[in-house]
Structure formats: structure tokens, C-alpha cells
């Protein structure tokens, strides 16, 4: 059965607290802290970008698969909405940096915050069809939030990598389901620096329609219900949306909180749900079931039904956990944040 053979994450060390951002715009910080359940977010260093984060996550993933020869990776997909180049793939940089070249397929993906899970689905197909032995799917972003926009409080940086295969899985993928419609809730035109969004429209017609329908679609397809799952991970644009989605679907808070990393690191876009999943894999036991539902604006959701195997105990400790990265942090103020995110005029690259 096709499943997840290994996983790895990376989160840069810098953090900015929502208070720091609110101070600059004289916003009421409670809207974000209490209202959206976000305390701080991760910020990349000047010399970090989507490619470097992806490489670190991919390397961590392969650290949890030490017996696998990187040359046996048959495909690498990197999903992001902040690829360093508009034309020149991130996937080849990752492939080179993990020694997987040259006999492999590779391409970049984009679907707002669900490009990483789309990569997992692509790998599943290739593995199941027997074209490749292992595929690596990475979701990575250095998300940019427009100054004074609500998204500035949550747009963060991070990466998560998943190795898909049939041998030595740590979590079987029992099923996958996607719900896709053309809904322009959040977008970025070519050449524009910051994305735009349609305000409250991003909620109901965007996030909730797709996440709810997708999760229900997956449960219908696999004949499962919320009671069958020990954990539910949803894409995290903030801390409130996943809990509300859970309430609508019938998942109690306790099943969602273990994966709710957004409170401490913000929304790392293509890495968001995949980092939440990694946080769950860092503690889940063999036999436990996980429902993961991503969301990408534009819009679509991918859902996966996973059953953890006992093998996870052998690999979990071989690379840093999500909690390690959450705890590895140094705070910066808005001035340094502006410098690091290239927002100072005359200083951007």
C-alpha cells in the first residue's frame, strides 16, 4: 500500500510577535491574538528562501530514511507560491542538494497553499502505477504579507517534505480526495509583490466550502467518520478556521490542537497543513488515524486518510521535530522584519 515513508520539516529561527506588528499600525492586537489565535510567526533570514527551506526539509526527511539511496528517488515536486524564480525550477535545486540527480522526474507546482499536498498526490500515482519507487513532495514558502493588511500577521515561512513509497511506510494512505472549483478568493498577479484577497469572501465560499466538502468527500469515499480519527489536521490560515471547520465536521478540539502549529509559527502557506501533519506524526502511535485536509486559494482542497504504522517509532527521532523548531527561536522587531523580508526601499534584492 502506498504511504508516507518519511517526513521532515524546517522552520527558520526568527520570530516576530503580533504585538510588534500591531504597534506599527496601531491595530488592536487582540483581533489577532485572541480573535485569530496567532501569537507570533516565523520570518526567514536574509539568506533563506523557498529553495533553501525546501532543501533543509528534504534533508531532514531523508535523515529519517537513512537506508534509502537518494538516487532511488524517482520524482521530486516542490509546491510553493514563492518560488525564487518565475522560470527555473526549485525542484532541481532540491534534487541536486539531496544527491538525487540525474535519473528522476521533477517539476514545480503552484496552487496557493495546497501545492505541497498536490505533490504528494502526484507521487502516490507514480508509485502506485509502478513508475517510481519513491517520490518526494515538498511544500515550502516564504510568504509575504502586505504591510497593514491582516495577512501580515500570519504570512510566515517554513517547509515540509514527505517521502512517498510502498516499502517501509510509517503511515498508510488509505485514501485521497480533492475538491476543486474556480473561486478567486485570494490571488497574486504576475509581477506583483503582494497577493490580494477578497476579504470575508475567503471564508465561506473559499476555505470552508472546500475544506468541509473535501473532508466529507474523503470520509464518504473511505467509509469513515470523525470518530474513526484520532487527529484532524486542516490548513491553518489562522488558529480559528481549523477549529471551526472541525466543529462543523464533528471533530472535537482535542483532535485538532496537536497539529495547530499556526499559533506559534504562523501560516507557512504550502507548508502549513504539512507542518501540522508532521507535528502529529511526531507524537502519534502505531494504529492511530489522521485526517489531513489542505486548502489552496483559487480554490481547492486535498484530503488524505492516514493510518500510522509502528515503524514510525524507528524513524521519528532521526531528525528534528516540529517542536524543536518551534522552540528554536529568536525574536526581532518590525525594523529587522522589514529588512529581512526585503520591504525596505533600496534594500530589496
Amino acid at each position, binding site marked *: 500500500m502506498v504511504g508516507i515513508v518519511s517526513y521532515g520539516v524546517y522552520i527558520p529561527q526568527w520570530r516576530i510577535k503580533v504585538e510588534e506588528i500591531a504597534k506599527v499600525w496601531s491595530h488592536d492586537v487582540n483581533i489577532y491574538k485572541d480573535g485569530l489565535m496567532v501569537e507570533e510567526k516565523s520570518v526567514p*533570514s*536574509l*539568506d533563506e528562501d523557498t529553495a*533553501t527551506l525546501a532543501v533543509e526539509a528534504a*534533508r531532514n526527511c531523508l535523515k529519517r530514511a537513512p537506508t534509502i539511496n537518494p538516487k532511488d528517488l524517482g520524482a521530486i515536486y516542490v509546491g510553493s507560491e514563492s518560488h525564487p*524564480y518565475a522560470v527555473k525550477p526549485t525542484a532541481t535545486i532540491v534534487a541536486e542538494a539531496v*544527491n538525487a540527480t540525474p535519473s528522476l522526474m521533477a517539476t514545480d507546482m503552484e496552487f496557493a497553499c495546497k501545492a505541497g499536498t498536490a505533490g504528494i498526490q502526484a507521487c502516490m500515482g507514480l508509485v502506485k502505477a509502478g513508475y517510481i519507487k519513491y517520490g518526494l513532495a515538498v511544500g515550502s514558502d516564504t510568504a509575504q504579507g502586505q504591510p497593514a493588511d491582516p495577512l501580515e500577521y500570519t504570512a510566515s515561512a517554513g517547509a515540509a517534505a514527505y517521502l512517498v513509497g510502498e516499502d517501509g511506510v510509517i503511515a498508510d494512505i488509505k485514501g485521497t480526495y480533492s475538491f476543486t472549483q474556480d473561486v478567486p478568493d485570494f490571488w497574486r498577479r504576475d509581477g506583483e509583490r503582494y497577493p490580494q484577497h477578497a476579504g470575508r469572501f475567503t471564508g465561506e465560499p473559499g476555505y470552508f466550502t472546500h475544506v468541509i466538502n473535501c473532508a466529507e468527500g474523503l470520509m464518504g469515499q473511505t467509509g469513515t467518520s470523525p470518530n474513526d480519527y484520532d487527529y484532524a489536521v486542516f490548513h491553518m490560515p489562522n488558529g480559528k478556521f481549523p477549529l471551526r471547520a472541525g466543529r462543523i465536521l464533528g471533530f472535537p478540539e482535542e483532535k485538532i490542537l496537536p497539529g495547530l502549529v499556526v499559533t506559534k509559527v504562523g501560516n507557512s502557506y504550502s507548508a502549513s497543513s504539512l507542518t501540522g501533519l508532521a507535528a502529529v506524526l511526531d507524537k502519534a502511535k502505531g494504529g492511530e488515524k489522521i485526517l489531513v485536509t489542505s486548502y489552496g486559494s483559487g480554490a481547492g482542497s486535498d484530503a488524505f486518510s492516514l493510518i500510522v504504522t509502528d515503524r514510525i517509532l524507528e524513524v521519528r527521532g532521526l531528525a528534528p521535530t516540529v517542536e524543536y523548531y518551534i522552540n528554536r527561536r529568536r525574536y526581532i522587531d518590525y525594523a529587522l522584519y522589514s529588512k529581512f523580508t526585503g520591504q525596505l526601499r533600496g534594500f*530589496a*534584492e
Partner: protein
Amino acid sequence: MAMLSVPLHWRKYKELYNLKGSRCHTCGQAFFPVKRICPNCRREGKIEALPFSGRGRVYTHTVIRAPPEGFEKYAPYLVVLVQLDEGPKVTSQLVDCSPEDVYIGMPVEACFRRLRVQNKEGIIIYGFKFRPVDGALKR
């Protein structure tokens, strides 16, 4: 130093991305970057590939405060000599560490970062830098 020559950088990828060096099979000495002639054995040296683990210790350190062209945005930054576990020393930057916290002997590991970008049109050069290993920051 201003020209970002594409072929020149591409030739260094094996070393820059994955710290692939070489070793003289004859005398056993490891080299980074790659050497094609062993300085000890000359042409009698049989050179073979050696991937480095990326682990080492800080041998000496400085902070660059007057940066050269192309590095202005990063200053001040730490430049160190790292003595790799396999023997050779290498010049690199030390990241995720403040100038006050670096010390000779600090255990470090290689990480993957942007090295340079000339401007918004040119290519981005990636490669290794070093960061303190977990626990190294508490002496």
C-alpha cells in the same frame, strides 16, 4: 568579483551544495575543495571522491563589517574557518549565531543558504554555510 558567471558557479555545485571533496588514496589526506594533484604525492597520488559530512568545529572567526561588493545587505556577518571532522579547514559564513556567541571550538554543521544574488535579474547562487549544532550555543 562582480560578474556572476553562470558556468563558473555551476561547476562548483557539487562542492557548494553537497560538500563533495576529494581524498588522496595514497597518503590518505582529505581535501576540500577538490584537488586534482595531491600536494604530498604529486602524480603518484590516487585521487578519489570524498563526500564530507558537513560537521566540524570553528577554528577561528571574525565579523565582516566592511563588506565587499554584493554582500552589503548581509553585513555584519560572521566569517569562520571551520575545521571539518575529516581534517581540512574551509572558509564559510556562520549563521543562526550572533557575534557574541561564537567561540573557537564550537561544533557546527553545514546548512543550505543563499550565498549571493547580484541583482534582481541574475541567477541566485546557493551553497553551504554553517550553523551551531543543537546545544552548541550554551558553552
